[in-house]
């Protein structure tokens, strides 16, 4: 027997900390360490609670007889939802360690930063647990609204404000599309719950036009949120203008959450068994459309990243490309594909946050030390940082034995197994293109000499997150089975 209270404890805990940290901030305005430690404690406690839940319920629990439950079947427990809870908390913890030094250096250490992080993580966790369109919508908004503020956190820097405004306008524009899609699907299927929606799609429904319009609008809205081609234009500007630490968090945990929302919706819109009835919704068309989006995303992301001179912008475009790889798992629409997404999202979180932490350490003030040339000779002055950066770059490029390689491998294998060989060929070509700019950064660090005077780099707590990222990238690269066994159970159903 499972108790609802215990399985929901991670959600309750994060909500509790999100609300109380506002009061803690108000009480201890002078001492910033209090707010920092309180937020950190909250994340660690939530991660531990989720880990206990994952241990007790390694497979997904979708409550079927939900009348006597307080959540009324709107929330799923255990399995992938608990796994992603841990992942999001991990991302936030890594970001927090690195943000302390960064914010101090930019003279913007306000404890609101940490409370906004908690709020956005609670939104991500609601997405992971959602079994209802309403939960998905509330989760996406709870995640995005703190992101709009975080993007403009350094409000004396015009780039930051510009990023915030662009993100806000395009993000809420996308919300409009997403909502309209949800409303149309509600009208066509008569329900907001995913279980009922996939049941009525599988058995055929009357109002096909409304359903097709709804699915189209939802795909537009979600493509905006994950920054997929052709709706990726906002991503480079927003990721470039935001504070580097925030970019690291948005482009990993935020992207993983958006992909998770896409995955949950897509897997319910494409049920496996379709009973031939009044209307058979053609799931293959939907799969093909997402496949085209995925192919376009990785090609456009990687090709535009080639010409970038600014490292932050290059990583922003590469993060667009990585969204394309992640979409392959949704295209596959199988257990293997979802497993691949989970694995790749984990690997991607470690390597991308690590890379952005290093960019944040080297960056100085507004737009200084962000060009690729500024990384020349880093291996001589800071051999440790250079070695870590090289490792993250190799992992992003997908070179064994880093975690990124296995993530890509599982996604490609899943796509081939579902009959999307052409998509895999495109993905391999995109990966080969991406090697060029990842490797060129390594060449700068190891084989070029620095002409200007050397940088003084104070890592502080950021070193902890760099070490965790390095361990993550290596551990899951050398022993991928550790993570794979966990993810295999995550998507199985438990009564």
């Amino acid at each position, binding site marked *: 027997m499972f108790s609802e209270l215990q399985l929901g404890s991670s959600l309750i805990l994060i909500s509790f900390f999100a609300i109380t940290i506002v009061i803690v901030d108000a009480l201890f305005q002078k001492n910033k360490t209090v707010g920092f430690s309180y937020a950190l404690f909250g994340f660690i406690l939530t991660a531990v609670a989720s880990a206990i839940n994952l241990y007790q319920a390694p497979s997904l629990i979708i409550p079927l007889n939900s009348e006597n439950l307080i959540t009324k079947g709107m929330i799923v427990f255990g399995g992938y939802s608990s796994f992603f809870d841990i992942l999001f908390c991990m991302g936030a913890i890594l970001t927090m360690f690195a943000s302390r030094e960064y914010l101090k250096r930019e003279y913007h250490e306000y404890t609101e930063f940490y409370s906004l992080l908690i709020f956005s993580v609670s939104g991500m966790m609601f997405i992971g647990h959602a079994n209802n369109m309403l939960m998905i*919508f509330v989760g996406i908004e709870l995640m995005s609204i703190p992101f709009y503020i975080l993007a403009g956190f350094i409000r004396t820097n015009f780039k930051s*404000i510009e990023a915030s*405004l662009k993100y806000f306008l395009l993000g809420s524009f996308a*919300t409009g599309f997403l909502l*309209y899609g949800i409303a149309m699907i*509600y*009208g066509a299927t008569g329900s*907001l719950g995913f279980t009922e929606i996939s049941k009525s799609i599988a058995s055929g429904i009357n109002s096909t036009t409304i359903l097709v319009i709804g699915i189209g609008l939802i795909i537009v809205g979600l493509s905006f949120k994950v920054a997929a081609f052709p709706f990726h234009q906002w991503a480079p500007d927003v990721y470039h203008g935001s504070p580097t630490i925030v970019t690291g968090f948005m482009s990993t945990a935020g992207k993983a959450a958006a992909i998770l929302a896409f995955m949950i919706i897509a897997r319910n819109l494409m049920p496996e068994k379709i009973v031939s009835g009044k209307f058979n919704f053609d799931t293959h068309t939907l799969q093909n459309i997402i496949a085209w989006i995925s192919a376009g995303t990785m090609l456009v992301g990687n090709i535009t990243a080639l010409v970038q001179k600014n490292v932050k912008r290059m990583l922003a475009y590469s993060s667009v490309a990585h969204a394309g790889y992640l979409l392959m798992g949704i295209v596959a629409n199988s257990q293997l594909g979802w497993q691949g997404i989970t694995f790749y999202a984990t690997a991607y979180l470690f390597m991308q946050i690590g890379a952005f932490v290093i960019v944040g350490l080297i960056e100085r003030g507004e737009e200084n030390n962000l060009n690729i040339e500024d990384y020349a000779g880093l291996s001589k002055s800071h051999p440790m940082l250079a070695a870590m950066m090289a490792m993250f770059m190799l992992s992003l490029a997908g070179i064994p034995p880093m975690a990124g390689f296995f993530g890509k491998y599982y996604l490609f294998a899943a796509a081939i197994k579902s009959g999307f060989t052409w998509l895999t060929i495109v993905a391999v070509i995109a990966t080969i293109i991406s090697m060029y700019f990842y490797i060129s950064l390594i060449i700068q660090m190891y084989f070029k000499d620095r002409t200007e005077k050397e940088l003084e780099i104070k890592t502080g707590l950021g070193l902890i997150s760099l070490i965790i990222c390095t361990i993550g990238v290596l551990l899951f690269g050398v022993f991928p089975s550790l993570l794979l066994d966990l993810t295999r159970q995550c998507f199985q159903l438990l009564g």
Partner: protein
Amino acid sequence: MFQSVSLEYFLILAAVLFSIGSIGVLTRRNAIIIFMSIELMLNSVNLTLVSFASFLGDSAGMIFVFFVMAVAASEAAVGLAIVLALFRQKQTVNVDEVNIMKW
């Protein structure tokens, strides 16, 4: 005899409002007016939800509308704060002048 207004009319009205909203977002250059157009889009969604809920005889859609309203309100608070921060920096709310980042 009375004949009630059928569902299609509500949906068409909502679609027209949604189109006006999205055209407004794409063509207007004043940040505040873009923001108002987005609110118009959200309200057209509310109309769609309420009419579906009423014709399906299901209350879930109406509950949804409350959530949309709450989210729209919080978005308005954040959005106006961002526009204010922009105005303090550059004395403008024209989005065309907010383009220092180019690839």
